[in-house]
């Protein structure tokens, strides 16, 4: 199925997603770590960015509860770093990855990972063949609502997401989620710079996630890790500045300036606690409304 975004789909449009990610894989490769992980790393000590990104991937695989020989669903696959680890390190039997970015889908397919099904479709349009044993979604949740929705519509979209994950998981299955959240600031904040880089997206509040998951998932673990994002962004910015002339040659001075400003603004957002970074481990509630 291609670009299966229906009218009711609460997600940012595939055009909006492609606007961001299809600037070109080569551009992101310049300043991301070698695993091409474009989300907040997990810092434990004085490790480098690549190790901290692998820590993050391992954290989510661990909290998805996925075991060798099982089936994994990844929602928002990035450039395939987590899939690679799931297949080649954990030894999962099969992994399905959903993405709305053509460039990322092609990149993952070119990696020719065995037993991986990369689909260019929204979670809203996804219909699995069989149940999954675990689900991971790293920084895709930010695209599950749009700025033009009312608060009620936004919450309904999130509920539909958790309801879908609940339906797709075997009993006892887990969902490991990572998302940027609004902390000090609310929906009225929508800076023009972020619109230029991430159009058509809206962030969740932590309480919206908790409310939307109620009845479908119990929260086993929650971490707020904005300091980890400040450190990750410092690495990206430093890499981008070190490769600035190559970057300008690739995408032009204006685009590089927009990204540099954007990374700086987001860094300040995390530094000041305007935004936060939630990592949440959720366990499927198996007996909804039944015996307690």
């Amino acid at each position, binding site marked *: 199925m291609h670009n299966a975004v229906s009218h009711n789909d609460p997600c940012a449009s595939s055009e909006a997603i492609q606007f961001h990610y299809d600037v070109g894989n080569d551009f992101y490769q310049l300043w991301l770590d070698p695993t091409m992980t474009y989300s907040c790393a997990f810092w434990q000590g004085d490790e480098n960015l690549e190790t901290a990104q692998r820590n993050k991937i391992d954290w989510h695989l661990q909290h998805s509860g996925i075991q060798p020989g099982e089936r994994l669903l990844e929602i928002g696959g990035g450039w395939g770093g987590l899939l690679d680890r799931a297949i080649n390190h954990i030894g999962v039997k099969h992994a399905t990855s959903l993405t709305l970015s053509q460039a990322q889908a092609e990149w993952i397919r070119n990696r020719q990972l065995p037993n991986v099904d990369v689909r260019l479709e929204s979670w809203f349009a996804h219909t699995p063949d069989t149940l999954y044993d675990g689900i991971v979604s790293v920084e895709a949740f930010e695209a599950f609502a749009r700025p033009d929705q009312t608060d009620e519509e936004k919450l309904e979209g999130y509920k539909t997401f958790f309801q879908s994950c609940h339906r797709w998981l075997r009993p006892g299955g887990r969902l490991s989620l990572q998302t940027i959240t609004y902390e000090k600031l609310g929906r009225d904040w929508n800076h023009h710079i972020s619109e230029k880089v991430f159009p058509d997206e809206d962030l969740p509040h932590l309480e919206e996630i908790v409310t939307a998951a109620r009845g479908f998932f119990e929260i086993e673990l929650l971490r707020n890790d904005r300091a980890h994002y400040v450190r990750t962004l410092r690495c990206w910015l430093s890499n981008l500045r070190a490769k600035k002339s190559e970057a300008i040659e690739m995408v032009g001075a204006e685009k590089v300036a927009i990204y540099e*400003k954007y990374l700086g603004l987001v860094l300040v957002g995390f*530094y000041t606690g305007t935004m936060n970074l939630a990592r949440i481990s959720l366990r499927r509630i198996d007996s909804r409304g039944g015996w307690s």
Partner: protein
Amino acid sequence: MSLDGPHSVTKVNADISGIPSQGEIEQSIVEWLKNYLADLLNLSVDELDRSITFQQYGLDSSAAVGLSGDLGMWLGCDIDPAIAYEFPSINELAKALADDAAVRNAFGKRHSIAGKESADA
């Protein structure tokens, strides 16, 4: 105009080696920040209080990130985008930067008497 930072450096009394001292660097940064903020906020340099926070002057995150970028260009080294939050007044920021050996080194290369002509060019 606030961005003519190098002109204020001409007031620096460099020692015989041509490299400004830490105190002189701090003073140069104070002058640069005062000029920059006066221009940005449409105030006269004399009206600026060096101990009042940038936030109290109404700087938003976009302006703070812009300041870090312009400051880095003037100093000749990368400055963290959150620096104006970590050191939130002219006095604190100038002192923190002048305390940083990497900043002093970059400043010395760009603004010492020997290197000044190339910086102005």
